[in-house]
């Protein structure tokens, strides 16, 4: 076999281009991930009359791989058990994660009066539902396997949490859910989606918008010898930042949208623990710096923060000279 000399200069670049193209296609397929995050303590989630060796996490992982095998998908699977807010935060920020399934306890109740309970908790009992605000344009499929997960998803859609992810497809159930059945249905849904559209994971990824134009800088100081818990930094209901657990002091710069109404600028440091979840969650103390205003801790007259799992920093504008 011989090449015509006149064609050699043309074939060379084409071959190089083809090789690069194949490498690129291969690398994209290899790095796109499907992630299963479970947050269940096996000792507390074992059905009656079962041996101590019965482990819900093992069961879920086994089923996850089994269902995945039945699908013709080129996604790299990852499984994380005992997932915490840090894990969820990391995976939601990871642009290679195209499908994410969360399995954990959840409760969605609206009382007839003024009481409500809307929580998605990790195995330590920490509420991490607000982290789902981080769902970005790169995520194609989100399965929320927890009791009444569908109600959360509907509410988040209404609140506009997923506006940055127009191609997102979600799965949740409106009823109380068994962990294994919930996972099976979530995977079945994904399989159906793949059947209808084999190019499910090929979609245009839009650019994410900034949170706002006002810069603030937050210092977090540890006044204890214990490690500080991770905190979700909220501007009222909106998640604006996250700090992982740490023994050392921390700092973070954030862009937020300041409102003319002071109450809308409240900053909340939220560990996710309920009033009785942990004896003394260590949230550290925040010092929030900004040119526009200042924040003061909601505290007693003796300087004791009011709150257990969360601290509130109230906003005050700086009077102009």
């Amino acid at each position: 076999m011989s090449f015509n000399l006149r064609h050699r200069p043309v074939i060379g670049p084409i071959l190089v281009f083809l090789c690069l193209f194949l490498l690129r296609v291969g690398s994209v397929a290899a790095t796109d991930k499907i992630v299963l995050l479970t947050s269940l303590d096996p000792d507390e989630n074992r059905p009656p009359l079962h041996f101590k060796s019965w482990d819900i996490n093992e069961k879920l992982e086994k089923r996850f791989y089994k269902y995945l095998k039945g699908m013709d998908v080129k996604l790299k699977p990852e499984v994380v058990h005992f997932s915490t807010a840090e894990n969820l935060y990391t995976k939601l920020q990871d642009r290679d994660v195209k499908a994410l399934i969360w399995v954990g306890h959840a409760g969605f109740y609206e009382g007839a009066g003024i009481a409500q309970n809307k929580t998605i908790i990790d195995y330590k009992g920490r509420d991490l539902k607000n982290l789902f605000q981080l769902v970005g344009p790169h995520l194609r499929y989100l399965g929320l396997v927890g009791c009444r997960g569908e109600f959360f998803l509907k509410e988040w859609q209404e609140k506009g949490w997923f506006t940055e992810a127009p191609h997102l497809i979600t799965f949740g159930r409106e009823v109380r859910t068994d962990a294994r059945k919930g996972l099976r249905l979530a995977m079945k849904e994904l399989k159906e989606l793949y059947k209808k559209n084999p190019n499910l994971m090929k979609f245009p990824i839009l650019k994410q918008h900034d949170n706002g134009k006002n810069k603030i800088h937050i210092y977090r100081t540890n006044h204890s010898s214990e490690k500080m818990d991770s905190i979700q930094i909220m501007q009222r209901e909106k998640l604006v930042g996250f700090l992982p657990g740490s023994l050392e002091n921390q700092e973070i710069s954030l862009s937020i949208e300041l409102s003319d109404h002071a109450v809308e600028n409240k900053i909340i440091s939220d560990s996710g623990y309920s009033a009785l979840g942990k004896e003394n969650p260590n949230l550290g103390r925040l010092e929030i710096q900004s040119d526009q205003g200042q924040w003061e801790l909601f505290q007693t007259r003796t300087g004791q923060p009011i709150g257990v799992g969360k601290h509130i920093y109230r906003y005050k504008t700086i009077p102009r000279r």
Partner: protein
Amino acid sequence: MKSIISCLLIAATFALSTPSKAIVGLATDSEELAIAGLALMDLSQIWVVESRTTRRHHRRGWTRTTYVTYRLVTFPAFFIAGLVLLDEQGRAEISADLSEEVIAAAELTSDEVTAFKAEIEEINSIKDVVASEISSIEGEEQRIEAAGRLWTEYSSVLSQDAAIALAKITNAQ
């Protein structure tokens, strides 16, 4: 600050239909029902409003104090083996979404509604502190009394409108 508390209590006294001084005790018993092997096919839940009135005799005569508490009560209906249900029921928050019925029943003014919604995070933080502090107290009645005391104490850090709204709502429920 004492004058604010006095104003608050006086205002609440006039605003409320009950003739007595109303101390609001709102506490939630946290119940972690996501327990190993406790496979519950169905859990019905109800909110129980408990109102207790105690009478005490003082030099100037009898006084009546009413404590109102909300408790989340859960009870299993069925028991099916083999399921690991992902239900979380250990918490309760006070919602800022006040329905028209609640506003009308509590006779809230627009200022009170605005203040209640604006300070909902602070109100829930106080609720957490109260729930945490009473959790170590033995005996339901003692807990209720302690909750009432704590709510009275902490309501001084809320605005008057928010504190009155809270008192009116809990008494109207």
